[in-house]
């Protein structure tokens, strides 16, 4: 370290200059934007996340959901295409016999380990029944354990698609190991 740097005072002043420069540039831009009507001048804005949110893009890949049939049962026929294509091996399906021979097969178990998921969206692409989608708009899920990151069929079936601006319409699923 050079001597000048050892006296922090100089470096602190340098830092203050950078901050102040940003402050006055932004102040100028905001003034131009709002007071003088220069709409192309855009100052930096802070979004008060999570109270305030910017709209999500419609093609955002968020938490998965399982699409339901009219009677509420999963549309999934447990063909294992998503499980096969999944590069993270995070989908666990166990197939069972459906009482209706026209449907024939349904998932007795359909777990997604979100601790492993890489949100590539291949499962959605691979699904021949359009039974899995990543359109819930939910991005904030967390857990105190690995086990809690495994979302079950029941949880995924209960989710609704996000609204038109990408706002989630379903509450964030709470893992079993966490109290709200």
């Amino acid at each position, binding site marked *: 370290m050079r001597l000048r740097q050892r006296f922090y005072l100089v470096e602190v002043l340098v830092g203050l200059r950078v901050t102040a420069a940003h402050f006055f540039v932004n102040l100028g831009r905001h003034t131009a934007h709002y007071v003088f009507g220069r709409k192309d001048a855009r100052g930096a804005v802070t979004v008060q996340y999570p109270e305030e949110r910017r709209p999500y893009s419609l093609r955002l890949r968020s938490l998965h959901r399982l699409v339901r049939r009219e009677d509420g049962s999963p549309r999934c*026929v447990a*063909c*294992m*295409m998503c499980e*096969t294509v999944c590069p993270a091996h995070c989908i666990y399906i*166990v197939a069972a*016999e459906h009482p209706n*021979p026209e449907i024939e*097969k349904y998932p007795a178990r359909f777990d997604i380990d979100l601790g492993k998921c890489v949100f590539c969206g291949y499962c959605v692409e691979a699904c*021949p029944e359009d039974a899995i989608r990543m359109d819930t708009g939910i991005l904030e899920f967390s857990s105190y354990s690995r086990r809690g990151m495994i979302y079950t069929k029941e949880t995924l079936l209960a989710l609704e698609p996000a609204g038109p601006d990408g706002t989630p319409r379903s509450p964030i699923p709470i893992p079993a190991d966490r109290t709200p």
Partner: protein
Amino acid sequence: MPKLTIDGKEIEAPAGTNLIEAARRLGIEIPHYCYHPGLSIAGQCRLCMVEIGNNPRPQIACNIQVAEGMVVRTETAKVLATRQSIMEFHLINHPLDCPVCDQAGECWLQIYYMKHGLYEPRMMDEKVHKPKAVPLGPHVILDAERCILCSRCVRFCDEITGTGELGIFQRGDHSEIGLFPGRELSNPYSANVIDICPVGALTDRDFRFAVRVWYLETAKSICPGCSRGCNIEVHYNLRRPHHNQGRRVARLKPRYNREVNRWWICDAGRYGYKFVDDPSRLLLPARRADTQADEVVWEEIIPLVAARLSAYRPEEIGVLASPQMANEDLFLLRRLVDHLGIPNVDFRVPSRASGDEDRILIKADKNPNTRGAELIGLGPRPGGLDARGVLRAARERRIKCLWVLHHDLLLSAWPEEETREALRALDCLIFQGSNANGVSPSAHYVLPSATWVEREGTFANFEGRVQRFWKAVEPVGAALPDWEIIGRIGEALGMGPLPATAEAIFKALAAEVIAFRGLSYRELRDAGKPVASS
């Protein structure tokens, strides 16, 4: 032999060979559904069309025999257009079931559709609906919509088993496969129709939805269900352990061997593998003091067992080898028995249930290696007792230590009470086997062995054909192949070092046992070789 040309390549084939087989020898695949080398020719599917000479129309290759100077072309524009039309025809009423169909991944309709299909469907009409998910018998389930009416299954039941349960009913596009009234597809070979069904019409009830076929891996093996020694493939799943309720071996499939089972296996053999992933598997070696069983490690139990075996006089020890064991195990056991000078050795324990037998494949002897045990010589030594004699002597306390390999003596043809009494009277009972049975709970030492899919080795079938089986999965728990357990005990008793592989033991076996002379483990290859005729 007629000489002909297929796609510009010359081949000589015996008279009577059809064009599909002749082309196969050249490595040319002519697509087909209804033709099966083990069945009569039906000419139903019309897919195997080829052009012959200057004939104006393509002809079916399955029903045309080779002839001198024939010129066959299998990939001309006309042939390809015909194939595409015929595929379109087959798919008119075929449902888009692939996601739920167990055949997906090994379906010839999928394979030929990808190769020759018309990708833009022209059918506008509603497909004809037929019964789905109909059980035909204990093992087979039918989806009539998926059937392409190749009639292989019908011909199988007519020609191979002669039971004739199946037929084609109705006419035109309403034709469907079905059972004759009052019949059930329950003959002892019924599940073979699943293998020969080229599409997903006939699927396996036992394998239904268990594992998708693309997760399966295969190992060549030999069926241990009877002394026929049918060649099989073991299909196992290790990639998705949550499938099939955690069972690793998912199914057995027949493997072609002209000399033994051709294309078929019986249902008893096909579904007889369930013990491999059964909860009754013995996982760790155990030592019992009073009523308490302690699980221990091999390093601890081998010297204990060796010490017990050397503590008794040889005539106080009985050894009951099993014809379920491979030649390599039996050979090392014989070496050990000879090393200790034990006269009371046997492998014949008659089972209580009398075995069924037929003229197709099934043999009454339900052990895969009785012939091997005979040839290697695990019968009583001069002056020694046979199995029944050993148990009698145990009751009279003349035999003090008994080493039982695999046998469930309580299920033998002998009175159960007598056997129990003999086991109780023993000073030391050693049980070696893969699963818990009637003997294992009373054993003082339990040695867990690997099942046949967890190791490699050879069996000799009833005709004396020595056939190799390969390892599919790892042994469960601490289980070891029988030869390794026997070899380690032998090592502790000064019999010499433990052989490194099954192959090394086979080499010694071929050098020492006359019947096996001249055989080499590698040279057995897939189809096996007969022992020297005595």
